[in-house]
């Protein structure tokens, strides 16, 4: 019974990381109808930037903040330079372009930072928390991880719903032509969307890298599961992203604990197939198109 609790709590922590990646993908999808395969690679780069800042300034929080800022910049820059030109061209081109970005980022990281593992600090203690002598299987840092992702999600939700900027973004995603006619700078809105996604990815990066160690491919597996979570939840739904992430995190934790760690990706595939068979657009898909 204690193990069940430990598996569950541990799964929630990883689940929130997947949720953060999933959210960043949802942000970009809603705004630009594109899949950003480079999301994990961007998160890896911003985490490298963070570790360099932390070493130079001996301040974790400086690195943390700089990573988030770097995420904003990197997201915006990617959209402006490389993704914007693929607008109007076959959609798969943007997939290949973002894959190209991913490969480019990994190669650059290998060149500038080296391919060796780097240890990345956690914001708080990693010693486990206990309740009455029973270890819960989570640490203060894990609690911070969950809280940080939830807080960022809420802030973004508030941003979208209650601010003019958010209204503009929703309008542009809903109907770009009408939005343009209303005076909204749709292009700028798209860039902002990518920037925010970059921030989310950077957050996921600094939160998960203590557990993966930092090296050019460290975010690859996390990205795949984040993408899966987004698909499970429905690419149009931020709520779906969080739910999908938690589902995946906790589910895979049970598989690793009760079955065999070999089976985790197979089980993830199984979950995905089951969900998509029932709801082909994810759990929280919007209304389906009426077929004539």
């Amino acid at each position, binding site marked *: 019974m204690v193990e069940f609790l430990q598996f569950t709590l541990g799964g929630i922590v990883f689940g929130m990381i997947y949720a953060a990646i999933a959210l960043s993908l949802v942000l970009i999808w809603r705004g630009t109808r594109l899949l950003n395969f480079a999301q994990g690679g961007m998160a890896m780069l911003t985490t490298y930037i963070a570790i360099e800042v932390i070493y130079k300034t001996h301040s974790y929080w400086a690195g943390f903040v700089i990573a988030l800022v770097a995420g904003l910049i990197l997201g915006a820059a990617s959209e402006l330079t490389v993704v914007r030109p693929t607008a109007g061209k076959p959609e798969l081109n943007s997939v290949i372009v973002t894959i190209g970005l991913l490969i480019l980022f990994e190669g650059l990281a290998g060149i500038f930072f080296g391919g060796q593992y780097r240890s990345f600090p956690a914001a708080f203690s990693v010693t486990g928390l206990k309740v009455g002598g029973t270890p819960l299987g989570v640490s203060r840092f894990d609690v911070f991880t969950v809280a940080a992702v939830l807080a960022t999600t809420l802030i973004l939700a508030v941003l979208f719903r209650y601010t003019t900027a958010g209204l503009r973004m929703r309008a542009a995603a809903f109907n770009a032509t009408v939005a343009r006619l209303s005076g909204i700078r749709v292009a700028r809105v798209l860039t902002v969307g990518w920037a925010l996604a970059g921030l989310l990815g950077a957050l996921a990066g600094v939160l998960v890298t203590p*557990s993966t160690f930092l090296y050019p491919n460290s975010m690859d597996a996390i990205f795949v599961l984040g993408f899966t979570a987004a698909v499970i939840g429905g690419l149009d739904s931020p709520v779906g992203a969080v739910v999908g992430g938690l589902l995946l995190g906790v589910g895979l934790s049970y598989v690793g604990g009760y079955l065999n*760690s070999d089976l985790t990706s197979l089980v993830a595939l199984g979950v995905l197939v089951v969900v998509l068979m029932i709801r082909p657009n994810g759990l929280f898909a919007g209304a389906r198109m009426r077929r004539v």
Partner: protein
Amino acid sequence: MKKSQRLRWQAAAIMTSALLGVAACSSSGSSSSSSSTSSSSNAALTASAPGITPTTITIGSHQPLTGPAAPGYSEIAPASTAYFDYVNANGGIYGRKIVYKYLDDGYDPTKTASVVRQLVLQDNIYALFNGLGTPTHLAAVSFLNSEKVPDVFVASGCECWNAPSTYPETFGWQLDYISEGKILGQYIKQHFAGEKVGYFYQNDEFGQDGVKGLDDEIPASMVVSKQSYVTTNVNIGPQVAALRASGAKVIVSFSIPAFTALLKLGMLKLGYNPTLTVSDVGSDPITLGGLLEAFAKQAGATVNGNQLTNGIITDEYLPALSASDSWYVLFKKIHDQYEPKAPLDGNFFYGMAVAYTFVQAMLKAGRNPTRADLTNAIQGGLPQGPMVAPFAYSSTNHLGVTGAYMGIIQNGVVVQQGSVLTTDTTATGPITTYTGSEEQAPASGIPSASS
């Protein structure tokens, strides 16, 4: 309609032929071995084999330089290169310089097959040196043996390299995982008799062979849990929780350094503090300390990661990295001169040590060696060099070092406990104490030619 279609096919055909033609023309031909008369003290140096010219010996390797498996392992080849550079600067091998060409295979067996063929068929290497990885090297071993290319000192502890009848060109070097498991297992049986033991192992040939060796020694009644992990999934919390739930007081881990560190972190998270025994592969104190250092700083004090590695039990077949060891002094000198920026850790030491063994073998092979001269030289037995135990090399045994000593990590260094132990890969083969002594590093840093 048809005309334009035909035009397209023709255009494509021309393109195809052109491209294939270009590919053919651009193929770099084999390095022609021109004979030259060098005025050397003894016989003249000739191009006695593919890859050997009067001035150079070209060897190749496949290594994971990029990709998820690269961290850690990618240090080995530059370390070997550093030692070869040192030898080249000090007379080379009978005056020839060693040219070490290693190519990235990203730990992908398909790519390994490709780069090994490139090295043999296009770059005309004399031998394949220190090919890294079990699944990767398995993709190369048949080809190397059918082409009769010496395949020396494979960087993998699989016992599958010991197949003199099917793979006569292939030789291991490091301690194989089954023997290692036996040595670790015996230590646990002797020092923790009656305690509950749990295994944590990588679910591939490395971990599985290690477990085989452990099971040869540790009574089954002592083992309460066996948990495996895969390198693609870093969330090992469930496995650690399962180990804790089983009540294991001793954990034996056949894990790579990253997962040893994760295991330690997972134990911290659960407040679980069993005795940790780790395979040599995953226990290098410097690597582990580096991985854990970000977490050791937590308490606010400026401790380094060593605090978290103290007390880890492990085995070693190379000397400890301490200033009192002659090999460490030698390798540090070369490291500081040729690769000062690389960390001088277990992987670096490994790379230099295996390069040293290769130089010993080449010196033994003679002034104008053929490929067969190299394999015969190894089969005739090699001195143990930096290894703490003898090599097994003979015409019937192609495995490398036969033993190791047990040690406990203290303050970032492995402190030896007891004598060197040697054994074999069979389930019932005994573990015996090695009564010979360690060799000292030669003053010149280069093995003598008369071994």
